[in-house]
């Protein structure tokens, strides 16, 4: 992931009013995590699994602050239970930013399940998402996700793939 893409993510978060980022680090977003840690006005909370991060983000929503859950797309599977309970059961939204492991061009066998399951899982949760493969679209995608989630009070996701994370 290039520094310019990292900067675009941070600009999008700032313009969307995000002040808390929960994350479980992954390799494709590697430079993003220290950049978030160093970002003024953004509190980062490393978590032990992405489901825990989703629930923390839900709690941040209830405080009036805005949170983001940053993770590899495999974390989506780990988050399904709290996402379903909070989103479908109570209308507590979580906005996610995830790296696209397992898309066409993937060269790691262990990442194949992430690509195969990602979109069907989001569709099962009836969750809108945008896959961004060009740097120019990152910032607006993040802003749009927050606009939608704070109108629907439901989850949304931005997935960064292709050259953006390679």
């Amino acid at each position, binding site marked *: 992931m290039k520094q310019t893409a990292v900067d675009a993510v941070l600009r999008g978060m700032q313009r969307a009013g995000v002040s*808390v980022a929960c994350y479980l680090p992954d390799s494709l977003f590697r430079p993003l995590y220290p950049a978030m840690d160093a970002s003024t006005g953004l509190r980062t*909370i490393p*978590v*032990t699994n992405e489901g825990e991060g989703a*629930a923390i983000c839900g709690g*941040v929503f209830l405080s*009036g602050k805005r949170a983001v859950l940053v993770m590899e797309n495999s974390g989506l599977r780990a988050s399904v239970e709290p996402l379903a309970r*909070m989103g479908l059961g109570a209308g507590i939204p979580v906005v996610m930013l995830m790296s696209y492991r397992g898309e066409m061009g993937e060269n790691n066998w262990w990442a194949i399940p992430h690509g195969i399951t990602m979109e069907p899982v989001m569709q099962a949760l009836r969750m809108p998402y945008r896959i961004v493969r060009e740097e120019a679209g990152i910032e607006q995608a993040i802003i749009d996700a927050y606009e939608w989630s704070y109108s629907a009070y439901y989850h949304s996701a931005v997935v960064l793939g292709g050259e953006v994370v390679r």
Partner: protein
Amino acid sequence: MSMTRYACMQALAPRLKDELVILSLGGSVDEWYNAAPHMRPASLFQQQLGCVTPQAFGLAAGLPHRRVISLDTDGGLLFNLGILATLGNEQPANLFIVVWDNECYQSIGGPPTHTAAGRVDLAAIARGAGLEQAHTARTLDEFDAHCAAGLAADVPYLVVAKVATGLQPGIKRKHSDGREDKYIFVRHVEATEGITIMGPSEHN
């Protein structure tokens, strides 16, 4: 165990005024609804394992000037022990966690949780994860003393209340669902914080 969860709630409730509470699960929801009616809008009633303390921590992180209370359960905490390590690292100064440990999954008829065998010590796990103030209460006096200490602490404070398995008889059921409870809670946070969380739509 002779201490009941409801008696503990009756001890905790009068101590609360401006605090925010997130709780789960099953029978404890109806018990808190009855034991702390003045805290109804300040309480978010959930029905989920593993989310209560993480949500309470998120709320505490967003409102660091406000005391937040997590009323969790043995089954709920065991579902996601990782949150203890996160709390150990983050050290939220405004989070008080009560774990109702009745050693069973009461809401589905009472099969045992992992604490029932007598080897799993949730307070010890919490201390090992970095929560120095993590204790076990076996009597109402002990529980009440930990409530006083936990609500005044400037570090995260956890008390495991070893409670009987029964449900308090004769209490009213709470009829609202998770969505209605969310709105009631959010409107209470908005009113008491002077903020807007779920605002009006744009006109465009």
